[in-house]
C-alpha cells in the first residue's frame, strides 16, 4: 500500500503531510507520546521486526502478493500512539533508503498505514475482545483477525479516497474506493490471520506485554 510519487496531486500531498505532522504534534503536546529509553527500545525492536516481516512477500498466482503491513499489530502491542511512531519509523526508512513509497507521498503513507491502520486495528481489537466477554487464546485470535483485516481494508479505502479526490486523475472516488477497498478487503484477511496468530501465541498473551489486552480487561 506504499503510494509512490505521482499518485497524489499537490493538494493531497500538502494536506496529508499537515494531518500527519499535526497528529504527532498533538500526541506529543497532549503527553500521549512520552519517549523514554525502554519505550524507545520497544518501538525500535517492533519497527525492525515489522520491516523484516514486510520483506516476506507471499506471491500469489496472477502476479501480486501479500505481506504483513503491521499497523494493527503495532497499535495493539504498544497502544495507538507508540504504534504510530513504530510504523512511521519503518515507512521513513523504506522511503528514504529503499524508494519503497514516495517522498512526496510519505505523509499520506504514514497517515494511511501508520495512523489509520494503527487506530482501526487498536480499537477493533479492544472492542471485539470486550464484546466477546472473555480473554482466551481463541478470542484473542479472532479479535486480532478482525483487527488486522479491518485495519488494511479501511486504510485501503482511505488510500482510495486520496487518489480519487486528486483532481488530476480521470477517476473519481466512485471508482477508486471500490478498486482499492475491494483489493484490500481481500488482502486484509491474511493480515488478520497473521495478526491473530502472533497475538494468540502463548509467549505473546501476557497482558503486561500487550497494551490493548490490558486495556480490554485481560
Amino acid at each position, binding site marked *: *500500500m*506504499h*503510494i*509512490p*510519487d*505521482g*499518485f497524489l496531486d499537490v493538494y493531497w500531498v500538502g494536506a496529508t503531510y499537515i494531518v500527519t505532522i499535526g497528529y504527532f504534534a498533538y500526541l506529543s503536546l497532549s503527553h500521549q507520546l512520552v*519517549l*523514554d*529509553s525502554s519505550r*524507545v*527500545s520497544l*518501538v*525500535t*525492536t517492533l*519497527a*525492525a*521486526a515489522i*520491516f*523484516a*516481516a514486510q*520483506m*516476506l*512477500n*507471499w*506471491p*500469489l*498466482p*496472477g*502476479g*501480486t*502478493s*501479500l*505481506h504483513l503491513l503491521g499497523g494493527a499489530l503495532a497499535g495493539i502491542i504498544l497502544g495507538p500512539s507508540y504504534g504510530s511512531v513504530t510504523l512511521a*519509523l*519503518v515507512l521513513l*526508512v*523504506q*522511503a*528514504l*533508503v*529503499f*524508494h*519503497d513509497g*514516495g*517522498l*512526496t507521498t510519505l505523509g499520506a503513507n504514514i497517515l494511511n498505514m501508520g495512523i489509520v491502520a494503527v487506530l482501526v486495528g487498536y480499537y477493533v481489537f479492544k472492542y471485539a475482545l470486550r464484546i466477546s466477554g472473555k480473554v482466551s487464546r481463541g478470542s484473542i485470535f479472532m479479535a486480532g483477525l478482525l483487527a488486522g483485516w479491518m485495519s488494511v481494508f479501511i486504510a485501503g479505502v482511505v*488510500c482510495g479516497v486520496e*487518489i480519487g479526490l486528486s483532481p488530476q*486523475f*480521470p*477517476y473519481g472516488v466512485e*471508482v*477508486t474506493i471500490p*478498486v*482499492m477497498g475491494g*483489493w*484490500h478487503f481481500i*488482502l486484509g484477511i491474511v493480515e488478520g490471520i497473521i495478526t491473530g496468530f502472533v497475538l494468540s501465541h502463548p509467549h505473546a498473551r501476557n497482558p503486561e506485554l500487550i497494551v490493548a489486552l490490558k486495556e480490554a480487561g485481560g
Partner: protein
Amino acid sequence: MRAWAVILFLVIISPVFGVILADRVGYHEPLDVAAEKLGLKEVDIGYHTPFEDYTFPGVGPVPGYILAGLIGVGLIAVLGEVLKRVVAK
C-alpha cells in the same frame, strides 16, 4: 536478544519470498495492480535512494535483498540508539 535473532532469521529467509517466488509469479505490489486499473503512473521526482527496491549495487538479487534487509534493520536499530541517547539527556 531473542527478538533480534528472530528478526535476523526473517531477513535471511526473506529472498525466498521477496525474490525467488516473486520472480516466479511476476510479482507486483497490490497497489500497482489497482493503479494499473486506474491508469496511475509513478513519477520520478529526481531523488536518489541508495538501495532502491531492496537491491545492493554490484550484488545479485538474492544476497542483495539480504544485505538491503540487514541495512534496513541496522538503520532502524541505529536510529533507536540515537533516540535513546537524546531522550536520556
